């Protein structure tokens, strides 16, 4: 079994009296694509933020790439930041910079690269994310939603991270764009040996990309396993999610009774 790169133990996050996670355990292994699913408000994005250190947990331990996030000194956290990449839901691109400058931003923190190399590397990452050359000179507001997500991915990949966190990468994309994006994630993960932590609602993405799935419910990770394992789980939400009509469609099974006028 591959080495564990993210280890979450007994995580508890809360905002005031509102407890989001309580006693949450999760392992992410090197090189896998882990899909995190759960109903709205179960704290999928909060979990992503807690692991990446954007939200401070009330209790529990997060260990990423051998660093304990709670006890780490600032220098260790900085070093860790260069080894992970985060793509936020709408790209979270800096609106006053062009796409190329956005992708260059993480590279400028490494002062030993000259401007020309930085630009070339940024262009390469933009191309890896599947955007044309001309997109690099545009501002985020001039791009479509799908292109902004790709630009966000290019920025997340700028430092060749080992782990990439993706927050709802296919939300708001048309089915064709979403399928392309799934393929891109799968392809990059294989080619670059990336570990991917993927928060999603999209069943097609789960089927197309994920090696393993973690289901968030009742303030913890209810179950982890492959898609086939999910069909065995006896929990109302998991059953509704993985055996509902949309799930069957995504799995490619025929829906039992197709509506007459469909």
């Amino acid at each position, binding site marked *: 079994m591959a*080495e564990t790169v993210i280890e979450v133990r007994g995580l508890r996050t809360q905002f005031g009296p509102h407890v989001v996670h309580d006693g949450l355990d999760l392992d992410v292994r090197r090189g896998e694509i882990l899909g995190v699913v759960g109903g709205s408000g179960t704290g999928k994005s909060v979990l992503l933020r807690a692991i990446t250190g954007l939200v401070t947990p009330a209790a529990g331990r997060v260990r990423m790439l*051998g660093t304990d996030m709670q006890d780490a000194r600032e220098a260790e956290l900085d070093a860790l930041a260069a*080894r992970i990449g985060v793509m936020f839901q709408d790209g979270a691109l800096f609106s006053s910079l062009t796409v190329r400058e956005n992708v260059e931003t993480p590279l400028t923190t490494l002062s030993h690269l000259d401007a020309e190399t930085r630009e070339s590397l940024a262009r390469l990452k933009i191309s890896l994310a599947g955007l044309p050359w001309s997109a690099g000179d545009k501002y985020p507001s001039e791009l479509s939603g799908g292109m902004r997500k790709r630009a966000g991915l290019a920025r997340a990949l700028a430092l060749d991270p080992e782990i990439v966190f993706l927050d709802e990468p296919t939300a708001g994309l048309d089915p064709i764009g979403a399928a392309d994006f799934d393929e891109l994630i799968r392809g*990059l993960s294989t080619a670059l040996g990336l570990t991917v932590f993927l928060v999603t609602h999209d069943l097609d993405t789960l089927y197309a990309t994920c090696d393993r799935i973690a289901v968030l419910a009742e303030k913890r990770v209810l179950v982890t396993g492959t898609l086939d394992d999910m069909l065995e789980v006896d929990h109302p939400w998991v059953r509704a999610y993985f055996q509902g009509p949309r799930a069957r469609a995504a799995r490619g099974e025929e829906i039992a009774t197709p509506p007459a006028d469909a």
Partner: protein
Amino acid sequence: MDGNDAGEAGGLRLAAEGAETRALLTGALGLADLPDLQARLARIEGPVTFDLSGARRIDTAVAWALLTARDRLAAGGTRAEIAGATGDVAAILETVRAALPEPEPQPGPPRGLRVQIERLGAHVAGGWEGFLSFLGLLGLFVARLFGALLRPREFRLTALAHHCQAVGLQAVPIVALMSFLIGVVLAFQGSAQLRQFGAEVFVVDLIAISILRELGILLTAIIVAGRTASAFTAAIGSMKMREEIDAMRTLGIDPGHALIVPRVLALVLMLPILGLLANVAGLFGGALMSWIELGISPAMFMTRLSEGTDLNHAAVGLVKAPVFAVLIGVIGCRAGLQVGSTAESLGRMTSAAVVAAIFAVILADALFSIFFQQIGV
């Protein structure tokens, strides 16, 4: 398993085999090794083989450096090849090779006299259109205001009260303080000049006329323009950004009624009151300084004020207030409605609103001065 540990850092070894160079890459190479690697790759001349059989792990930056070095040599007609890559290293190399971006020639920004003239023309036309849209919104405000008079139930009294508090009550401290200080400065400077002629007592007229006619209301309007026009633009602009204004329209709520009338009307009601407060505070500051500096007692100041200063002066000042209020309010709301979908446009329109509002207030004040001069008030 972990390739990023510093202990097993990779490297590049160059070995000459006759005329040919053999470049051996070993260990794990990453972005941190790039500058050194690039510098050494750039020095390689002649036929070369990049041997990756010893490389355990490379990243896209290193792959990119190797591929560009190979392309550079190949473009010069020299033989250069990459050999020995296996497994992950080969996969990364292939991915990067497939993704190497092709530069697309971008049309440079157009230059020349023609472009300059076009730009000037666009500015002039834009300015005129801006003025027209200002008039349009002014018309909308007046129309909705009269509409509210005809159908008082549509009028939003709560919103009006809220805005009166925000633009009026909360501006009182800063307006009063500013005006008090202006009164102090006028008395101080005026007394120094008038003392040369032995005409110290005229400092009362100086303070009273300048504050009541001009400075009180003008400075109040400028402060309110900075404080309130920007607030209007930011509030309406962020609603525009989040499509709240479109939502209002689809729900049959008129943005003119809901957003513009309460804001502009609140300014029209509050600015004269703020102006009056500014007058009082300015006279108080002037009287205080005259007493300290020239020994003009408050009682004497009052007598001199009521004898020497016509009530017209105060009326001339305050009559300008509603006009300034409409200018500031409409300019602030108009800028808010022109905010686009980005955070940057919100910032740009906010500062544009403040500049335009202050300019409009000063321009209107100049026109008022000429007008009052002509009718002899």
